[in-house]
């Protein structure tokens, strides 16, 4: 017997349309672009984790980011403010997730380890790296995308919602 949900998915791969996603993506890319054109620095979001830890930790691994930690803090503050601007203008109020805290915390832990071991995240590799046609970044993106899809499918199949 064929799962009727499969037909539904095949019939409507974009239940929320694509405008929201495409426009949002272009704005994200624009943020990276103005930053890169002005500074020649490719923007990444995950180095902030290590660079900020250099304020409170003496681990030698974090020391290499001391010279960039102040602007990475400002960049991240900008991300929070920009999203808050969206919330004020379009969202009319706060939004909160129903995903279980244990999923967020454990997932975050693995993301924190993985992004630093793997030299980048969805922005550093996925946007700037892929944008500059870096072979390393393309392999990185394919790796975490496939693993994330498999993981999410398994978690959903186990009946964990949301």
């Amino acid at each position, binding site marked *: 017997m064929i799962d009727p949900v499969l037909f539904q998915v095949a019939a409507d791969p*974009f239940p929320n349309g694509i405008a929201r996603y495409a426009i949002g*993506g272009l704005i994200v890319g624009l943020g990276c672009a103005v930053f890169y054109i002005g500074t020649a620095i490719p923007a990444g979001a995950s180095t902030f984790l290590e660079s900020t830890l250099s304020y409170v930790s003496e681990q030698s691994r*974090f020391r290499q980011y001391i010279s960039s930690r102040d602007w990475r803090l400002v*960049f991240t503050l900008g991300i929070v403010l*920009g999203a*808050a601007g969206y919330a004020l203008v379009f969202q009319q109020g706060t939004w909160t997730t129903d995903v279980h805290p244990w999923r967020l915390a454990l997932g975050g832990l693995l993301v924190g380890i*993985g992004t630093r071991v793997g030299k980048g995240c969805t*922005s550093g590799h996925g946007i700037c790296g892929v944008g500059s046609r870096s072979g*390393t970044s393309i392999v990185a993106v394919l790796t975490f995308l496939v693993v994330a899809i498999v993981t999410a499918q398994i978690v959903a199949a186990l009946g964990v919602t949301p």
Partner: protein
Amino acid sequence: MADRHPLFMPLVLFGGVLFGFGLAYSHMARPEVVLDFLQFDDFGLAFVMLGAAVVAGLATVVAPRLFDEAPITGDRYERRLKPFDRNVLVGGTIFGVGWGLSGVCPGAGYASLGIGNLPILWALAGMFVGAYLQGYWRSRSPKK
């Protein structure tokens, strides 16, 4: 960094604001939307990454034609490619498990806080702990 261009920080902030606004606008700052994508319920999210990569990629082509060096930092537009090694695969796999489990990645996580999602602090705390753990290990490993 006393000799930094006075517009350096404002530009960094502006770039971050656009970045965060775009993540919120695309709803990628919502873990549910990312999980819907990974579960093949809504493929729209592909347009976020694709659109952003195309625009960022255009910048790497356009920038060297506009300026000889970056106006704010005076740096040259070089391709600073990250070397490929086993860590890219190992780290990418660990990242993928975490992303698939939570629906949160670093940039979208910061943006999620901006849209008022306080439970995302669990994920952000996890990221800092994870980044600290790998720093702790690697600061002690003979090969950096």
